[in-house]
């Protein structure tokens, strides 16, 4: 069933603010999928979620559920429930009463409420804690109560507003698996709002990346990572290196040679069908590079250049290098599969070969200089004295 929940051209400007919090956002959720809204804080993702939940009314645009317009319905009349960022558990009620709240509001029969609450608490593995008050349980348990409470009304859509933000790293990973399990069990559509790309990537069927109130890109996790449409998406999700380039010649139907200031000519996949002489920005992920002492043996389809290692940051599972090639400083990540056996470690100031496959440089549709600030490394074209 396609187009289960539709948002069409949602726009919201808060009073006293000139910039819209959400600017003509449109998306379509499919039944049963996990969809993430990903973006930095202040990008409008929470506002969009609150509009869906019925807590804000958009200035423009409509919301349709199963083709029915719910834009003007108050929260209590939408079959949408929310897991709030700080859980918003009622402090004066026991866990059991918290979970029962929605059914009581719906005036369901007593027996039905009892059975359902027990079932939900059992699903989140908290049945034995049912009489406790929210302040007596841990963050992860609160999280599970909030989910049970939101799911008990069998909503058509579950909104999750940064549900894991308050948990520590290990617990967050556990809860991710738990959320995945719960989703498999109930099969309800999840809309997951987060600023954490890792959560979004691992949980979602599809992701919408938001920036400054606008949706930048919608796609499967792999698409947004491997084929970012803009410098913002490329820089926000994972790390990357940007190069300003100009198309100089066409090699084949899909490949072109690009000129990058200070570097040898670069072979790149040209799915945008850019013409010679056009300017373009290239994004290359740090892990796509290879560093080696010897030049790569088979140079077909491979770009290579000389560089000097500036910094080595050993991170256990991988190592990050800052490598200077002419006036470009690249961030490169290398996995080491077999410690000691791999090779003699690189050292500072060592001259090395940097190479990458022509398919791994991705051309961006849109580039904004300010997006380079999102990178964990200084901008690529920083000149080094």
């Amino acid at each position: 069933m396609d187009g289960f929940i539709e948002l069409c051209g949602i726009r919201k400007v808060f009073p006293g603010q000139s910039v819209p919090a959400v600017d003509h956002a449109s998306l379509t959720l499919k039944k049963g999928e996990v969809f993430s809204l990903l973006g930095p804080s202040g990008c409008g993702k929470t506002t969009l979620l609150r509009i869906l939940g019925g807590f804000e009314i958009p200035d423009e645009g409509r919301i349709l559920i199963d083709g029915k317009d719910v834009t003007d319905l108050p929260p209590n009349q939408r079959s949408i429930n929310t897991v709030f960022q700080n859980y918003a558990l009622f402090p004066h009620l026991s866990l059991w009463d918290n979970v029962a709240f929605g059914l009581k509001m719906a005036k369901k029969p007593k027996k039905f409420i009892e059975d359902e609450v027990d079932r939900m608490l059992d699903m989140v593995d908290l049945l034995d804690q049912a009489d406790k008050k929210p302040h007596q349980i841990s963050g992860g348990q609160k999280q599970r109560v909030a989910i049970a409470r939101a799911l008990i009304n069998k909503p058509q859509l579950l909104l999750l507003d940064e549900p894991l933000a308050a948990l520590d790293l290990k617990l967050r990973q556990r809860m991710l698996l738990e959320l995945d399990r719960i989703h498999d069990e109930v099969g309800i559509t999840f809309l997951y709002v987060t600023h954490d790309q890792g959560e979004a990537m691992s949980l979602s069927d599809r992701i919408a990346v938001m920036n400054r109130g606008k949706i930048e890109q919608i796609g499967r996790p792999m698409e947004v990572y491997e084929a970012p449409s803009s410098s913002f998406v490329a820089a926000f999700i994972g790390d990357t290196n940007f190069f300003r380039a100009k198309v100089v010649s066409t090699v084949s139907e899909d490949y072109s040679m690009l000129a990058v200031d200070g570097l040898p000519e670069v072979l790149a996949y040209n799915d945008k069908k850019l013409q010679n002489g056009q300017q373009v920005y290239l994004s290359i992920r740090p892990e796509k590079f290879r560093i080696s002492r010897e030049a790569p043996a088979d140079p077909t389809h491979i770009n290579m250049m000389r560089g000097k290692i500036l910094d080595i940051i050993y991170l256990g599972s991988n190592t990050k290098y800052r490598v200077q090639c002419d006036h470009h400083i690249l961030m490169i990540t290398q996995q080491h599969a077999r410690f000691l056996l791999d090779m003699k470690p690189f050292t500072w100031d060592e001259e090395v070969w940097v190479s990458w496959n022509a398919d791994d440089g991705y051309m961006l549709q849109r580039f904004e200089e300010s997006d380079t600030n999102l990178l964990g490394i200084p901008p690529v074209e920083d000149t080094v004295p």
Partner: protein
Amino acid sequence: MSRIRRNSRLPLFVSIFVMVFLYAPILVLVLYSFNDSRYPGAWNGFTLKWYRTLLEAHTVEARDIWRATRNTLTVAFSATLISMVLGTMAAWALYRFRSRLQKFHQALIYAPLVVPDILMGISLLMLFVNLSMKLGLTTIIIAHTTFCISYVALVVFGRLQDFDHTLVDAARDLGANNWNVGRRVLFPLLGPGIIAGGMLAFTLSVDDFVVTFFTSGPGSTTLPVQVYSMMRRGTPTLINALSVIFILVTFSVVIVSQRMIQKRNSTHSRV
């Protein structure tokens, strides 16, 4: 516009009603202090004569009012001073020591806050009668000090809750003796709390009618008691003007002190 629709307007309407309710009597009072009529009902035209009578003090009534004002201030300053000393010591004791004695002490401090004025008034009256003390300014000062101690102690104790005692240890560690600790650490940090407590005590003392009514004697009338007897005698015309002067003084004091507090807060946060 669309946001308001999601929130009920009832709280706003009730709040507006409450504001009108709170201010209407006072505004009418101010208005009638300029009324050229002996009765509050009819408006006979604008006049300043009540203020003139009051300030020139050549009627018996006006002179009584000024004597009552002097009494009120004498009582308020004395009671404030004594209760600031006793209240601050009490708060410090409550803060520093956690013993059975302090539990009793704390209950003793809180008790006068919940006891109705009239009970405090009559019990003090009985005490003074039994001790054969002559009712006058002294008995009023004792009575006012008794309820002011609790308020000062409460305010200072509240401030002490936020006070980080390691600061004292730090000062000692840096070589300060008791005197230096008091002068350089405690006083600058607790001074505002003590002064706030003192201001509260002062206003409560000036405001008090019931306790004073029971513990005052002839010649020791304070302003509230004076206002009361003028009302009883049915000559309220001067009270309007007196009230307006009173209101002006208190409002400006409150606003100035509020300003001072806010300024201090903002400079604090900047540091």
